[in-house]
């Protein structure tokens, strides 16, 4: 009797709980392991290239493996210009769409709209590529001509060596550009960004929204004074997540752009290239040293995407606290 002692209180899981806990931990760790493994593999493969070319790998714009000239300056510029065009189309679209779904849409349509947007995310990349190439490019070229004609004095809307007012417009200059590819990529980025934004908008406390309406705000007034400040983190996070995806889009870009290795800010002009489209286009015929160069480019993209996504998730996480409304 005297031996009876209270059970030792422990937070350590036992039995089935322990199995589950450790199992879950292992699975969770495997995600880190895989991502880390990809990074380590890319870095390992990229090392010979980076060692051989040094800094010139980042400053050289030409990619001519058969002449031993390799660099990703132009490729990185192209990657960012395609991504920026995509964001310019996708961000306004997804903010407005998320706002409409969460604030304006009749309740019975809401779920089907959400499903449709998710469906857009499920359409394969190559379909968007074909859509962009055959359906959108002719119109995008005319839009590009219009932009050059009236906004050509802004460097990014310039198209070198061509006269927008020529009798027969030089169509070849306005197609297969970062602009055309960006439009197709925007359609792929939009659902993802929209989903994040919609989720954050829908977390806006009803009390504050009703308070705004009770104080006499219109619905738009309520959106601007409550929903948007509350969802600011979501907007930034969704944009960054979309940017992460836009940077890595491959097949649609391969189909649309004509590869050109030039550093050019002129997004409307024919020819550009992105890291992922470079890898997809050159992978098949690469010798081992060329493969290393391609993987080095992939490594750079990996690091950039990792940074962008990390920043995005940090921003999204902070916004969950609703910190935006305190401001």
């Amino acid at each position, binding site marked *: 009797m005297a031996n009876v002692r209270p059970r030792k209180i422990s937070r350590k899981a036992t039995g089935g709980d322990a199995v589950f806990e450790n199992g879950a931990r292992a699975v969770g760790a495997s995600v880190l392991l895989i991502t880390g493994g990809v990074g380590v593999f890319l870095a390992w493969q990229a090392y010979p290239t980076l060692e051989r070319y040094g800094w010139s790998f980042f400053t050289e714009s030409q990619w*001519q493996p058969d002449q031993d000239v390799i660099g990703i300056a132009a490729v990185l510029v192209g990657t960012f210009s395609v991504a920026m065009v995509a964001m310019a189309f996708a961000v306004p679209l997804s903010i407005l769409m998320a706002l409409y779904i969460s604030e304006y849409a009749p309740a019975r349509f809401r779920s089907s709209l959400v499903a449709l947007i998710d469906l857009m995310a499920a359409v394969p990349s190559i379909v968007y590529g074909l859509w962009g190439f055959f359906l959108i490019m002719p119109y995008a*070229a005319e839009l590009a001509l219009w932009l050059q004609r009236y906004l050509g004095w802004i460097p990014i809307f310039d198209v070198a060596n061509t006269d927008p007012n020529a009798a027969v417009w030089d*169509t070849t200059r306005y*197609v297969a550009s970062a602009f055309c590819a960006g439009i197709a990529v925007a359609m792929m980025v939009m659902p993802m960004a929209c989903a994040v934004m919609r989720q954050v908008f829908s977390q806006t406390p009803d009390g504050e929204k009703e308070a705004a309406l009770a104080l006499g705000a219109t619905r738009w007034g309520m959106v601007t004074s409550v929903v948007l400040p509350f969802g600011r983190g979501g907007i930034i996070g969704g944009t960054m997540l979309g940017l992460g995806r836009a940077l890595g889009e491959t097949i649609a870009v391969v189909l649309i752009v004509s590869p*050109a290795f030039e550093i050019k800010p002129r997004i409307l002009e*024919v020819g550009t290239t992105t890291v992922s489209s470079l890898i997809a*286009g050159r992978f098949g015929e690469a*010798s081992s040293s060329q493969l290393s160069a391609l993987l080095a480019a992939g490594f750079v993209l990996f690091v950039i995407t990792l940074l962008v996504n990390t920043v995005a998730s940090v921003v999204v996480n902070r916004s969950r606290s609703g910190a935006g409304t305190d401001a």
Partner: protein
Amino acid sequence: MNRRALLRPAVRSAIALTLAFATLLTQPGTASATVYAQIEGTGSTWSELIVQQWIADVDANGMKVVYTGGGSSKGRKDFSQNSTDFAISEIPYQGTDETGQADTSNGREFAYLPIVAGGTAFTYQLKIGNDLVRNLRLSGETIAKIFTNQITNWNDAAITADNNGRTFPSLPITPVVRSDGSGTTAQFTTWLDSEFPSIWRPFFGGSGLTSYYPKESGSRAIGQAGSDQVMNTISGFAGNGTIGYVEYSYPVNKDYPVVKVLNKSGYFVEPTQYNVAVALTKAKINQDKGSALYLTQILDGVYRNTDARAYPISSYSYMVIPTGADDPRMTTAKRQTIADFLYYSLCAGQTKAGPYGYSPLPLNLVQAGFEQIALLQQADSAVDLTDRDVRSCNNPTFDGKNLNKNQLAAIAPAPAACDKQGEGPCGTETGNNEPSTDGSGGGTTPDGGETGAGGASPAGGGAGSGAAGAGSGAPGGSAPPPVVDPATGAVVGGTSTGAATGDAIYANPTELAADRALDTRTFGWLAALLAVGLVVMPGFYAASLPRRRKPGTVR
């Protein structure tokens, strides 16, 4: 019951076996009893169209062949990494290139074997008004200068001279080149390097061929991966002013025009099966069986073939087959599939070459190809190659009696008189796989011989030169004056409405100074300034008025 159920499959398989043997004995080679296995290959897009057709043809015989283009460089690479069963490439393994990158089979044993001939064509989109120009002619030098950015406008004097004084609109030329490692590029640059080294080498910065076309940054050239992408770009909505190089079958397939290229005897010719066959009679084939490059081609003689019917940039395409006895990917079934697929391709398949925009192989190469196929049997004695006679092939180049004669080259029609340098140009269309000739041109070389001979002199070509010019080849001056839109300077199309007329489109476009960029800009700024002034001036005016507010007024 049980026993019968057990017996039945045995009986059935016995019957099947007997039947199989029976068919094997009666029809070796085509027998359904032959065991096939799927074979896969990658490589050239130059010859892809005909290969895909052959694949579709043999599919009914139970042979499953999967072929994916992607460029000759990729084909050779995949083969060397043991990831494919065969490769198709225009050029052989290069050993090591100038930068020391390896281009070898990585130790895998292989043999080259020619599968089809063809011409590297230059297809273009050039519109006058709304009508496509379909009878452009260019000399080799002009082509070389176009692709090295020395000639950049369609109204260039060199192009006008090639077309006997016919002027094209002022439109920048956009060369479309291959962006991937390509055998077509290799063929084209081999020709450039051999014929126009003074133009090509400074541009390339080296000598010899390259599989990767050097695209100068800042130039107008557009890169595209794969022959079909090049063709799509040229024939696409934005293709006006483009020119690119692809195998003749691509424009034929799309019904798109090709450039008639000037040959050494002063005729502008199109790469039809006849002209290619004639040109290739001068191809030098490596006949050294001990050489690693056995059967590969040296084309200098083709480029300089003096026959009036020869298309200069003609070449053969090669398949690379694995011949090692211990090849890691090969099985008897796979070897048999390769052998039978090639047997069909080299034999019956060659009849399709012409209609598809290629040119059939001559007999000596088919024979050599058969010998290469026999290497598969050497590697594996279970491969069945019985009853395969070259002579039974229904190949249009074969003459039943004379093995050395290339029948196709012998019957090739002489070029039309309006195709001669300084004549014409002919109004007939290109890219439709029909030879441009004056009536019956056959029989210009009475007994041919291996070389095809240069007997097809213009005078010998059936109809006289005077008669030829009358119908179609009216020179630019005598054509009705084109209608020119006064506002834009563009030529209004409409004189030749249908392609069926066969008339060429003629125009001498003039550029009108309807719109000067400087004017637009100047007046644009002026207008903007005025608008700003209108908005801002009243405000300034109001502000400049003296204050009238009385002191002491309640605010």
